[in-house]
């Protein structure tokens, strides 16, 4: 009878502790800004809307920043879809060598330290020997796309950092799609384009949509790279960082809460709307349909080649080119400044000369590695507990949707939330520094690990193994230890590596919570701002090489 009690108690204990740690470490920080704003509403109201001297200047500014952020993310998503879907098609449908490498390249922006990547993009587009100058065009931080009035570089960076979400979800859907549907369609006489429009597209539409939603939310919250290419323009996340540093907590918190609410409004309904039910599609008017099919039929088959070439070119320009420019620039700046020829402007001088940037970089790198390791380990434990809650209980589905939110919360809003909750202005448990960074990174690491673990849980069809094990005499805990964890090990490891890499490169939130414990990604922003370009080049290179290594390990393990 003792064992009986054990088994029940084990199950309850794990589920409850899962819920509690999720609340404390993930959900409280994610939603704290709301409660902060509501609690201090009178003073927030005065600061934002009715300042005795400034009036509603902050509110007007906020509207301007939000407008830019929204315009930017909407345009970004449109471009993501236009370029991402063909690329996903290329990755899934074509068989060629270096396929894995190409896929890694596509996923690179997801794991890359954003500040490093932002810097590389800036070099690639604005330097005097950059691609646009080849065509006699000069692009600077102040170049603005006409009509929509968005800084061009910002747009490029946002597209580069968000299109992988579209590629990832769409290529996942394409892989799940039974090839037979397309084969049947073409054996019934449909042109590939017709097949795509009438068969493939309707089936992958939900994934396209959810990829777009992720991309939108991510773009809305992007901080690290945007800070580097922002120039004089300000997006909402950047405003939060700036106000936080200027100690204007009320407007920062209010804007942060607005951004979190915006992400919530975008994510939650789509998650619920997209899963169930398949509606039939109405045919286009008969005449139009026939004309479309004729048009598609007249498209030469070499269209596919064109599509693939364009996709590859896009990938080259937006992801590979910045990397190459970074390498090129580190060679250029290695021994002397290429423009002035002065030794003081070289990487070697800045690293090992009197500025001693080498020490600074190494200290920041060490801090980064320590925080990434700690936060990943902590996240793994939390995720395992959360996994049981999600798979075994009815509220699991709801929790899984909620866990999408930390992934898209604007990082600067998250950083602000952390400091207001745990820091000296809130519960006063932690000061800005290493441990606060760890806790901040846990917030977005847990969802990553949970997501990959849940995926491999479903894939491995675990419930039948768990049931079998139970009936062979295993208690709840036995099953967890001998069946569940060993079988989803790969999912957990893959998620951890992803989380680790993400943590290594996180910029926006870390900037706010790091105190004196500078990590490497914010260090790059600081270097760029203090015009220590050679050191910035070198640090970006280190970070990107590191994330490449992580990606390779991941591929090796997950296969």
């Amino acid at each position, binding site marked *: 009878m003792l064992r009986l009690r054990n088994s029940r108690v084990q199950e309850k204990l794990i589920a409850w502790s899962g819920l509690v740690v999720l609340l404390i470490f993930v959900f409280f920080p994610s939603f704290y800004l709301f409660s902060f704003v509501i609690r201090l509403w009178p003073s927030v109201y005065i600061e934002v809307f009715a300042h005795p001297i400034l009036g509603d200047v902050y509110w007007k500014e906020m509207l301007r920043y939000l407008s830019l952020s929204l315009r930017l993310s909407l345009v970004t998503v449109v471009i993501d879809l236009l370029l991402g879907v063909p690329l996903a098609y290329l990755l899934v449908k074509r068989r060629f060598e270096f396929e894995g490498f190409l896929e890694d390249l596509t996923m690179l922006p997801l794991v890359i330290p954003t500040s490093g990547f932002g810097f590389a993009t800036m070099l690639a587009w604005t330097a005097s020997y950059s691609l646009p100058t080849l065509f006699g065009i000069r692009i600077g931080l102040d170049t603005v796309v006409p009509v929509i009035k968005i800084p061009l570089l910002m747009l490029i960076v946002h597209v580069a950092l968000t299109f992988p979400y579209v590629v990832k979800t769409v290529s996942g859907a394409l892989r799940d799609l039974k090839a037979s549907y397309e084969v049947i369609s073409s054996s019934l006489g449909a042109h590939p384009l017709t097949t795509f429009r009438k068969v493939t597209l309707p089936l992958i539409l939900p994934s396209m949509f959810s990829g777009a939603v992720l991309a939108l939310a991510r773009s809305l919250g992007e901080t690290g790279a945007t800070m580097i290419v922002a120039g004089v323009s300000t997006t909402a996340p950047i405003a939060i960082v700036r106000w936080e540093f200027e100690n204007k907590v009320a407007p920062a918190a209010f804007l942060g809460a607005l951004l979190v609410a915006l992400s919530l409004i975008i994510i939650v309904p789509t998650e619920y709307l997209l899963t169930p039910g398949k509606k039939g599609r109405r045919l286009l008017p008969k005449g139009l349909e026939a004309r479309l099919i004729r048009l598609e039929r007249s498209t030469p088959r070499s269209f596919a080649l064109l599509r693939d070439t364009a996709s590859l070119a896009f990938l080259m320009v937006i992801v590979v080119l910045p990397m190459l420019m970074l390498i090129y620039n580190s060679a250029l700046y290695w021994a002397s400044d290429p423009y002035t020829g002065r030794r003081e402007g070289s990487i070697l001088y800045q690293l090992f000369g009197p500025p001693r940037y080498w020490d600074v970089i190494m200290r920041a790198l060490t801090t980064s590695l320590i925080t990434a390791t700690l936060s990943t380990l902590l996240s793994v434990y939390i995720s395992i507990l959360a996994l049981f809650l999600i798979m075994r209980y009815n509220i699991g589905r709801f929790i899984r949707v909620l866990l999408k939110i930390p992934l898209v919360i604007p990082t600067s809003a998250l950083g602000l939330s952390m400091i207001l909750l745990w820091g000296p202005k809130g519960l006063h448990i932690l000061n800005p520094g290493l441990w606060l960074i760890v806790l901040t990174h846990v917030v977005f690491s847990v969802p990553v690990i949970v997501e990959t673990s849940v995926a491999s849980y479903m894939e491995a069809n675990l419930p039948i193994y768990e049931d079998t094990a139970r009936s*062979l005499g295993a208690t709840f805990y036995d099953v967890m230890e001998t069946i569940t964890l060993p079988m989803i090990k790969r999912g957990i490891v893959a998620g951890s590596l992803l989380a680790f890499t993400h943590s290594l490169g996180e910029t926006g939130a870390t900037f706010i919570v790091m105190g004196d414990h500078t990590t490497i990604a914010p260090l790059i922003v600081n270097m760029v701002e203090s015009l220590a370009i050679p050191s910035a080049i070198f640090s970006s290179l280190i970070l990107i090489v590191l994330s490449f290594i992580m990606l390779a390990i991941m591929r090796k393990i997950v296969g």
Partner: protein
Amino acid sequence: MAYLEVEGVSKSYGPIKALRDVSFSVNRGEYLCILGPTGAGKTTLLKVIAGLIKPDKGRILIDEEDVTFLPPELRAAAYMPQGYALFPHMRVWENIAYGTLIRGLPLERVWASIKMVGLAHKAYSYPHELSGGQQQRVALARVVSSGSKILLLDEPLSALDLLLNIELRYELHRYAKSMGLTVLHVTHNSEEALSIADRVLILRKGKVQQIGRPDEVYAKPRNLFVARFLGEITVVEGVVRASIDNRSVVEAKGLGRLVVNGSVNKGSHVVIAYRPEDLVLLSSPSEPYNVFRGKVIDVEFEGLRVRIHVMLSKGLESVIDQWFVHEIPFKKGETVYVYLPPEKALIFEYPREGISQALALE
């Protein structure tokens, strides 16, 4: 004495009643097949016995001990889903030793059961390296060495092709018997159930329809559904006109007068069913009664036998089996006479929900 008893078990999922007042008992060492269409509640029943699902009402007794509220690990009933769910990350011997180690039983029984199923040479292989038959034997050895006395099999052979299914089901039966296991085997394949079970339990919409020896349920189905589920039937509905001396005369719809054995109340609305092998095909009306003219509409050649579809009257189709001896006896389009032997008739009360509903699989 019954080893496993299920008493009045009910289970609902919201508005769906998966099990309604299910009661039956199984003897020690018996092989019981639970047969029913998809959605009949078979898997739910098995999981309730295993302890993976709690019933809303009713009790489960194993060896006279009430186990209704015991968790799965404390019952001696091992649940095996389709394909047996061998743990893919463990070797054969680890799979077989799983229950033994977890329950802290002496390890000698692991090797004993590995040898029993003849897999000593595969002890260090992984499940995916084994053939279907070997996997099945690992699953059986795993149950035996875990100390479980009851084996709950959930559609174990459903994913296999026909020939492998036949081969493995006999092996399954043989090993289970030699190991002295009490087996509950869930399937939707009536042939599989009838060929290996000691007794068959037919479940439909969560309710027990009939339980009995295979030959018994086949020969004396309790209702129209059981008759249809165990094999094809020809169905005729009618009203009893007279009943004397264990013989009844039925006014059959679309046929006219039909004589059947058995006494039924005069005036009652009945359904008469015939198995294909019980009907006789004649080339001329050589019997005095119960002979009806018809036209062959289809001939299915199945090797050992030939199944002939005859249209007797508008909308009334009969199915007749004949042995195949050198040539196919009747051709499509031919006019034939069908004899319905009175002693072979299966007589049922006319189902309240109508014939098509009574036969419906879902």
